[in-house]
């Protein structure tokens, strides 16, 4: 059974205007419950347009999106029900913060879902600890006096507190330093494990996608160019490079070793796997 079914999705921006552009063409894929999906593609390939369709912010020109057996593209659907199921964290989510305190800001989403104040308070505490912040220390401070990394965590907590079945993150690590980058990814992994929800991660970092995703979607010019396991997708080096994408650093390294004439049969994608592989090769020699 699939949790998300996307069928022949097509979207056109500014239809009928001289600058109309087709942003999505005939995109179809499925996501199983609990899957971790990575979406890659260079700038303007349609990634952001695609994820905005998944929670009903954009309506497709044609095609269907079925989430948990509900067709969210049909006219008589309540947006609130979609938003309850699908949480979307935009790029630079810290720019959406607006409340006086961190607590109020995170409670905004749950309260909009119609939860009681007590329930929302509970969710805020939960969400703050899930994103790795200290409730006592941070809850009553203004979100605007936090550091960049903390702001981003608070903004992500604002979506997590809605407890979505599907959490979509659009480049959650953009513009962060390496430490905050890996912290955010660890946090995403932790959320995935504790909540058991579907995570859809849009990223430019192939290494992150290779390490985390169960399934990888490759977008190019509004079309779904590739869809499969990280092993499948990252084995198509030439195709990825022709789409302006790269291999994960670890795979790139192995590919270069192979180019030097070293015989490697497996296809490691993460640094740890490469480490093991190198041990094997060195031991065998």
């Amino acid at each position: 059974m699939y949790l998300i079914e996307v069928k022949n999705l097509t979207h056109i921006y500014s239809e009928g205007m001289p600058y109309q552009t087709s942003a999505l063409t005939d995109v179809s894929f499925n996501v199983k419950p609990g899957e971790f999906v990575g979406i890659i593609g260079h700038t303007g390939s349609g990634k952001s347009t695609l994820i905005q369709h998944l929670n009903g912010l954009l309506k497709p020109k044609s095609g269907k999106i079925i989430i948990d057996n509900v067709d969210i593209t049909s006219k008589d659907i309540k947006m609130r029900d979609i938003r309850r199921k699908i949480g979307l964290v935009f790029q630079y989510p810290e720019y959406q913060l607006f409340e006086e305190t961190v607590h109020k800001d995170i409670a905004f989403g749950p309260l909009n879902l119609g939860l009681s104040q007590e329930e929302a308070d509970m969710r805020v505490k939960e969400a703050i600890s899930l994103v790795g912040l200290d409730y006592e220390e941070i809850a009553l401070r203004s979100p605007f006096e936090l550091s960049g990394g903390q702001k981003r965590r608070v903004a992500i907590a604002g979506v997590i507190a809605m407890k979505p079945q599907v959490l979509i993150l659009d480049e959650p690590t953009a513009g962060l330093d390496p430490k905050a980058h890996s912290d955010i990814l660890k946090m995403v992994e932790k959320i995935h494990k504790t909540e058991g929800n579907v995570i859809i991660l849009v990223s430019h970092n192939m290494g992150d996608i290779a390490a985390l995703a169960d399934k990888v979607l490759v977008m190019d010019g509004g079309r779904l160019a590739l869809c499969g396991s990280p092993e499948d997708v990252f084995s198509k080096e030439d195709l990825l490079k022709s789409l302006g994408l790269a291999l994960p650093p670890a795979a790139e390294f192995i590919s270069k070793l192979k180019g030097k004439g070293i015989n490697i049969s497996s296809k490691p994608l993460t640094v740890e796997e490469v480490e093991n592989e190198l041990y094997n090769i060195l031991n065998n020699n």
Partner: protein
Amino acid sequence: MIRDITLGQYYPGSSIIHKLDPRTKIISTFIFIITLFLVKDFLGYLIATIALGTTIIISRVPLKFILKGLKPIFLIIIFTFTINMFMTKGTPLISLGFLTISKEGLYTAVFMGVRLVLLIIGSSLLTLTTKPINLTDGIEKLLRPLRKIGVPAHELAMMMTIALRFIPTLLEETDKIMKAQMARGADFESGNIIKRAKALIPLLVPLFISAFRIAQDLAMAMEARCYKGGDDRTRMNEMKLQGKDVAAFLLMIVFVAIILLQRIYF
């Protein structure tokens, strides 16, 4: 949704109207608007409409696109139409209780309505066929003589350029924040007026912060490149009046002459 606003928007094209010097277009638009107030009857409007229509056809901007830009002003047109219709005294045509529509009232209402529509289409043709940057360049050049009496022409033009330049950016920003808040369940569309105004807070606070951030970044970037307004600045593209501009001015003179003759003799 928000990016579909066409008022004051540029419609890319390469027609002769697009290629005219911005100054020519600004002055011609002013002349056209002033001339509209010289018209005394519908025959005059017919001439103006034909002139405007021909210009639109030459500019190759689709009529559909222009009319779309009229939509936001539609309310104002309806408003003036109604006011004129009921408020002008004269021979009664229809009476609805205390409201009377007079023959003169109906005439004035239609007359004013047509004037308003022509006025708006005429001025929107200017912005549709002129890139905002060229438009402000033109304004700067036209204001230059006024510098002698202390009008800061360059600064004004720069402010306008920046304002125009950032309209799309701010619209995009609004769109983005709106979507982000909608993803968190914010509802901008239902409820009474107080509820709706309150619902705007999650939009306005981040928008203001963004606007200040953008302004700061821009100021920094300009200073980093040693921007200094004022006298000695040269420009990359000097504007020069060409043969087609002279032709356009001649046509405008002919147009004004026809309108004036029509006013006096017919």
